């Protein structure tokens, strides 16, 4: 088990380095090859050549590629000082780049917005797991019943309706129509109820979409597992049906769901762009959306890296959980 964990950790670290290199390559080299001058895009359209040259020097854009990557990489651990044309900007320790558009280091932006997205994703995940699994298992056990059909119709709706649609309706009904909730994000540090009230609608909206998917997957997996020989064996032992379901069928049903959860959570932590925009949540998704609009490459780069990191960590957790559930994985 420990060996397995170490192996997975090592693999994750290697993966992260590869990701940094690839992402960096895409964001800084591709524009170069495409003939777009990054420096002038930083300065603005009508910049004078001297200013552009200064920016170029400051960012090290004329350095060879490998040294650019190295500088970036080093910056993450030691911080980085941009200096060019007499202008010196310091970007301290975990330096994920510096946005010259907003004149600030990327890292504080990320740390500022990350908790919002994390809270949104984790809260929603909790909800959708709860409802998705329950609905899926019930549908499987009552296959063909009215409940099953009803649940699957709702699930189909959930899967097919986009977040901004359900979100808008939720906002319209609960926040503006009934005026139950204040659709305003309040940081957790300020007020728990305010924070909770602000997130409850995004949670439900997001969870609705995912719960629907999870319910369908759970139902299908459960039905398959119930047909397995070892379920028959469990019954042949004389186990009570609820125990058969809980102890034998559920554990097997969890494995594919866990795999999905790892991917989904990772992707969501990188920014639930649609949900965050709909509910005006100051999360990573919104940050990256703004950055795209303003072509603020360092921000996009920073968020992308955080997303990759989140996916990696989520997958690592899933892998470990997987090994806990399925002993066969430990040996592989």
């Amino acid at each position, binding site marked *: 088990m420990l060996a397995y964990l170490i192996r997975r950790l090592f693999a994750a670290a290697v993966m992260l380095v590869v990701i940094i290199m690839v992402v960096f390559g895409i964001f800084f080299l591709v524009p170069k090859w495409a003939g777009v001058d990054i420096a002038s895009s930083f300065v603005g359209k009508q910049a004078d050549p001297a200013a552009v040259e200064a920016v170029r020097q400051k960012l090290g854009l004329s350095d060879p590629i490998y040294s650019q990557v190295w500088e970036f990489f080093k910056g993450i651990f030691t911080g980085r000082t941009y200096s060019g044309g007499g202008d010196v900007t310091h970007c301290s320790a975990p330096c994920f780049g510096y946005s010259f558009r907003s004149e600030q280091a990327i890292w504080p932006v990320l740390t500022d917005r990350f908790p919002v997205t994390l809270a949104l994703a984790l809260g929603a995940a909790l909800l959708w797991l709860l409802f998705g699994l329950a609905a899926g298992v019930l549908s*499987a*056990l*009552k*296959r*063909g*019943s009215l409940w099953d059909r009803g649940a699957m119709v709702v699930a189909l709706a959930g899967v097919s309706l986009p977040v901004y649609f359900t979100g808008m309706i939720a906002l319209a009904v609960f926040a503006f129509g009934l005026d139950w909730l204040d659709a305003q994000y309040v940081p957790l540090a300020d007020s728990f109820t305010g924070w909770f009230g602000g997130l409850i609608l995004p949670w439900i909206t997001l969870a609705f979409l995912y719960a629907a998917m999870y319910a369908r997957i759970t139902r299908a997996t459960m039905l398959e597992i*119930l047909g*397995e*020989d*070892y*379920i*028959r*064996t*469990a*019954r*042949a*032992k*004389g*186990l*009570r*049906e609820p125990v*058969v379901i809980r102890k*034998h069928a559920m*554990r*097997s049903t969890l494995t594919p769901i866990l795999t999905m959860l790892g991917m989904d959570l990772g992707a969501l932590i990188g920014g639930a762009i649609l949900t965050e925009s709909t509910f005006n949540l100051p999360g990573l998704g919104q940050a990256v959306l703004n950055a795209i609009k303003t072509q603020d490459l360092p921000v996009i780069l920073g968020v992308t890296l955080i997303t990759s990191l989140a996916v990696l960590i989520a997958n690592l957790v899933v892998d470990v959980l997987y090994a806990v*559930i*399925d*002993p*066969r994985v430990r*040996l592989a």
Partner: protein
Amino acid sequence: MTELSKSGAAVGEPTAASPAPSAFLEVRDLKVHFPTDDGLVKSVDGLTFQLEKGKTLGIVGESGSGKSVTSLGIMGLHTAGQYGKRKAQISGEIWLDGTELLSADPDHVRKLRGRQMAMIFQDPLSALHPYYTIGQQIVEAYRIHHDVDKKTAKRRAVEMLDRVGIPQPDKRVDNYPHEFSGGMRQRAMIAMSLVNNPELLIADEPTTALDVTVQAQILDLIRDLQKEFGSAVIIITHDLGVVAELADDLLVMYGGRCVERGPAEKVFYEPRHPYTWGLLGSMPRLDRDQQERLIPVKGSPPSLINVPSGCAFNPRCPYADVPKDNVTRTVRPELAEVGSKHWAACHMSQEQRERIWTEEIAPKL
């Protein structure tokens, strides 16, 4: 143990109409039908047999003959855990040690499962839960029916593993099924099914998934254990060799019905049904000098939705036209006694069959 069977008698007795039989296990006119989109699948359609303790009954038939469905029916596994609308339709009577199982309280039957009657399945890899250790699975089986702590149950598990010939049982008990070889898994499966000393053991194709040398080991084990525990055994297989090794009585199934039943020697040496002849003739045998040609049964097994009218075997029977008036295609033959404790369901007269067997079939085998 005694408490259970007592309460069992109380639940089972009054509900059934016909009197309790003297045999340990008696199945009367068992029918198991499954509704499907294409129609009613009559997997078992009127099956009757008895089995005494200490004896072994072999049920032989091809795929789809209803042999596995019968075993699951006795275990009550068609109704347990059936979800949704399409439930199996079961009728008839199954008497186990004085209790009628089909009319008994399902929870009572559940308590008998694994305790008074246990089952070994064909593929031990898929029949064991991949996520639990062998020990955990045996312990679970034991603790359902015995109020003991985990430690005691685990000691029992080790003891059982040792009994079925698993080396280093105290270590292997903590292994997962995938860490066992095929033969070892089947041994573990047998240990699990015998952990509660069941009086009825149903082995559904216990060796089909195994190699021949491992099969020999497992058959040997089943035989020894039966001697030791004195249980009644039903062995279900398509392999006549396997039943010849183990069975005292034989029941040949075709199209959901029994076509021939009797002591193993009778069925092998004086078979009285053309399908049994077909099975014997289709099989290459190691103990005889090479037969020039096998004598296959023409055609393929019947659909269980549209079972041929009359005798289900008639489209494949080379002697379908021997009885007069097309009777084989219109009237379903009932089991008739053809010798002591030997029944067969065929329209041909006893003499005709005896002549065909001795003159036409036996010499070619």
